[in-house]
């Protein structure tokens, strides 16, 4: 059963097997072109595989949008060390819920993507780092992996191609920080989940100090389609330099929230109104967070834009992980900023000073502010504290906390002022906003 009804506007590439009966099983997968891309890739040279991924202009789906083909090409293939394929399935960004569907409905697609990545960089071991909260997915992935071993799609000499590949799952322990690639690797190695100093980047020195390809679940899942149908076909689905489709996680005050696979560059307003069925209760749109909680918020009038990495960046926000959070006119933006900061203050790993101290400061400040104890100087202070964090933290978590805060203060200054001088939150009684 699917979590949400598909939309007719969807372009189903990664989610094409969603909703098929018994879609997790290898039989279903094999019956629907499963593992064909692997066979094809096994006959290709590593350079050709990487090239095909480059042509597809697939960009990292975890949030940063780094070109995947280029990332793979950084791996020193002739290094004497073993190489690793690591899947970042630590999906924790508020507003994002796509990786769980990809693993729940089509786990073999992920395994096949990893195998192709393994072929491309001469890696024979893969790890799927799944966030601890996705307990049921760990069982599910383990079952899929066992099936693949049984049917000879994992292990030694896979399907007679001479390629060996092993896949293991690894459980996170509930830290958002471990979604950051180097912290994930630390955690994978059994250490405290804190980010590493980069360079060296994982491509050169990643898991166990060996060259490592580390991508998001969705990124790997796009790979079989790219190999099967060709990079150009995938690229053509999206906009220039933003190939393919994207699983957008539409949430918040829309009539039909859900995960929808739409081509890159799909218009945000159309997404809200046509795919999501418009703002709930016929209310007016106030703001949208376009790519998960770490992205600067967009005001309603800024929302008429194409959802690809470059266009959203031009609007001074980010496409991020594809978590589109819609907020209607009755949403208190101070409370929204507070809710986001609560998350980051809770999830800051504590490694570096600005993030550790800045997030908790902002949380306390916003908390007090929202409760009606704000003073005039607090509004610029919120922005300044956030700006002092921006670009100075060890890893992007500090930026992720600072950027939305800065945008909330800049774009909704009047709402902050409305909380001043002991005035109660004007939205509190009608506030139905719940983000997490």
């Amino acid at each position, binding site marked *: 059963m699917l979590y949400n009804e598909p939309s007719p506007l969807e372009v189903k590439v990664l989610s094409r097997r969603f909703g098929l009966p018994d879609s997790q099983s290898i039989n279903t997968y094999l019956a629907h072109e499963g593992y064909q891309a692997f066979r094809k890739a096994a006959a290709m040279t590593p350079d050709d595989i990487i090239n095909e991924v480059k042509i597809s202009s697939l960009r990292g789906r975890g949030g940063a949008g780094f070109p995947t083909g280029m990332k793979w090409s950084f791996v020193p293939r002739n290094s004497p060390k073993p190489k690793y394929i690591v899947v970042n399935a630590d999906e924790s960004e508020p507003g994002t819920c796509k990786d769980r569907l990809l693993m729940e409905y089509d786990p073999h697609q992920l395994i096949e993507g990893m195998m192709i990545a393994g072929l491309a960089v001469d890696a024979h071991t893969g790890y799927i780092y799944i966030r601890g909260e996705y307990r049921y997915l760990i069982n599910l992935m383990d079952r899929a992996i066992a099936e693949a071993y049984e049917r000879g799609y994992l292990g030694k000499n896979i399907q007679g191609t001479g390629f060996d590949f092993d896949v293991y799952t690894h459980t996170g322990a509930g*830290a958002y*920080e471990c979604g950051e690639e180097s912290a994930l690797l630390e955690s994978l190695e059994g250490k*405290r989940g804190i980010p590493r*100093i980069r360079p060296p980047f994982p491509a050169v020195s990643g898991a166990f100090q060996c060259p490592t390809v580390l991508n998001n679940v969705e990124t790997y899942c796009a790979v079989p389609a790219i190999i099967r149908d060709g990079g150009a076909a995938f690229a053509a689905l999206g906009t220039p330099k933003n190939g393919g489709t994207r699983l957008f996680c539409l949430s918040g005050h829309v009539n039909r929230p859900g995960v929808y696979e739409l081509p890159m560059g799909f218009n945000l307003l159309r997404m809200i109104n046509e795919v999501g069925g418009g703002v709930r209760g016929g209310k007016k749109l106030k703001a949208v967070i376009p790519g998960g909680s770490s992205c600067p918020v967009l005001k309603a009038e800024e929302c008429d834009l194409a959802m690809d990495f470059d266009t959203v960046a031009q609007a001074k926000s980010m496409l991020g992980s594809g978590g589109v959070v819609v907020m209607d006119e009755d949403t208190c933006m101070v409370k929204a900023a507070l809710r986001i900061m609560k998350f980051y*203050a*809770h*999830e*800051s*790993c*504590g*490694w*570096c*000073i*600005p993030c*550790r*101290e*800045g*997030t*908790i*400061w902002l949380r*306390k*400040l916003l908390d*007090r502010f929202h409760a009606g104890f704000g003073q005039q*100087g607090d509004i610029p*202070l919120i922005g300044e504290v956030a700006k*002092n964090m921006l*670009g*100075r*933290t*060890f890893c992007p978590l500090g930026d992720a906390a600072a950027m939305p805060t800065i945008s909330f203060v800049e774009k909704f200054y009047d709402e902050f002022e409305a909380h001043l001088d002991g005035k109660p939150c004007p939205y509190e009684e009608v506030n139905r906003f719940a983000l997490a």
Partner: protein
Amino acid sequence: MADSVNLTIDGKAVQAAPGTLVIDAAKKVGIEIPAFCYWEGLTLQAACRMCLVEVERMPKLMTACTLTVAEGMVVRTETPLVAEARKSMLEFVLTNHPLDCPVCDKGGECELQDMTFRYGAGEGRFDEMKVHVDEKQWSPVVYFDAPRCILCYRCVRICDEGMGVDALGVIYRGVVSEIAPNKEDHLQCDECGMCIDICPVGALTSGMYRYRTRPWEMEHTGTICAHCSNGCKTTLGTRNGQIIRGNNRDKSGINGEFLCIKGRYAFDFNSHPERLQSPLMRIGGKLEPVSWSRAIGEVARRFTEIRERGGRFGVVGSNRTSNEENYYLQKFARQGLGTNNIDHRRTGDVPALIDALAGRTGVLATVKDVYTAKASLVIGSDLAQQHPLLAYQLRANWRHHQSHTYTVTRGPVREDKYSVHGVRVEPGAELGALESLRDQLKAEPELVILFGDAIKGEAVRRLVEFGDSLGIPVKYICLVDYSNSRGAVDMGLLPHLGPGYQGVENPGMSLPEMLAAEDLDAFWVVGANPLEHNKLAADRAFVVVHDLFLTETAERADVVFPAASAYEKNGTVTNVCGEVQHLRSAVQTMGVKTDLEILGLLSKEMRINLGMWTPESVLREIRQTVRGYNVALPVIAAGGAAQSLPLNGRVTLDSRPELIQSAGDTLFTSGTLGRYSKTLLSVLEYPGVLYGEAAEPEADRR
């Protein structure tokens, strides 16, 4: 040029080796880039974000502690943007840092304070509640006040990387992240206090020092630790005539940043309530306090009388008294009393090594060599327990230079964790086991061999032969026990050797022989405790003891002189590597005299002219007459270490290696002296074990 990179820092042209960090390159040209988490020699953290600098063509501020130099790089360390970033970092740190500087031990020498003065805002903008956690005591010497902690992780790293103890870690996350000890609520470790010393703020404080003074109220005296033979410099902070703190404030000694529990905390014997403060004389069978003149007069009278009737003297020197005192004592015995019956507790066979190395130069390793040598071989010593500085150097060598370490020991040692090869042998079989390492050692470019008392007598010669057969440059360290054990040998506290390993004509009695000699007339013990486990056979002997405490030996004495400790005298001591360093008097204890002064007063009373008895004049004589001790005075005077170069020739050997026996002190014991250190006795780990580490912790870990 390939081996150097040109860059510009604040307009200054800088040349640095490739791979140099910008923070270090800046330091070279006198530009200080502030940092909390960066510590030279430890792994990089980039956690405090204080060292952010502007670099041309880089979009963001960069951390100077992780950025390596590059050709043509232009760095600016004091721009408005940088100053603003530092200011904001300090503001962040201070949000949850209690402003209890007026009662904080660190106040006055706190890095956070200094930086706040330099870069910080005048006023805080943080109006919220601070995070509070109660203070914890982790051990008798380590207290942790979490709110003060700025999480620079220096303590975690120095414990793990520097000491190899790994007793500290981090728990929780975000703003409640906390440094935590390895045993949940307490520490089980070396109790070295390195974590306290390295803490930039007052989060880690020492049980010995906390709340006793402000730093600026102390006098600071750099002297040499009175305990083991490694010769660490310890800076004693004194106030009102009491030692309050030991640390290595300026890191200028051979030990750099290192000190163990003994150097840092075990100065407390000095103000132990049982310190003797008056001469004691046996009157009516009981030791009674008497005046100095009466005690000196009595000893001079008895000694003169025994000497004149041709009686037998036995003189025992100390492993802890200064070179000047040792020299003067042996001169007193040989010239004044006319006896070669002089000895001390021998803890390593230095003479055999000197003899075996006759005719060579540059074959005695220094403490620094242990840090720089490409390979080291430890034979018969639990280095981390018995020679903590050498162990630290060895470990740092491995960390920084990937040097190779080999161990031949009778049980597990901490060096095993990183050694290339560790050989376990039955006690006594050490030498034979070397053969199994021959091929590996041969392949090394150079080697430092550190050997304990398992190798003595003829075995030393065979060890050197083995070293020669490797065909690589080999240097040696003969491990001895106490702060001036080496100096005692060098100064001739031996029945068969005078100062500078000169053989004497009529060798006297060794210590066991003195103890066993029933006809001994006088037994004179200067700073030793030979009767701790032995009995003096000569019931009627006149026994004179110099000591700090009423030890077992002093209890048997007829006259006891209260002696000044090593921290109360000037002079020189020689460490395990033969490096001569300066002792400086830090405090005075009422009623005591230095051994040198006691010797001088005695000689005067006995009308024996042995020369002036000031440390300076005796050192002058030593430099002139003792071979190898013509060390550079300015080096010593400036607090440096100058290696003595002992006799380069054959040494008359005593063919009784059984007289050589290390006391086997651990990190937490220090002979008789250690019994009077409350700190050593109070730590959980006391008395410690040798070769026992691996057996204990694993099962205990969670």
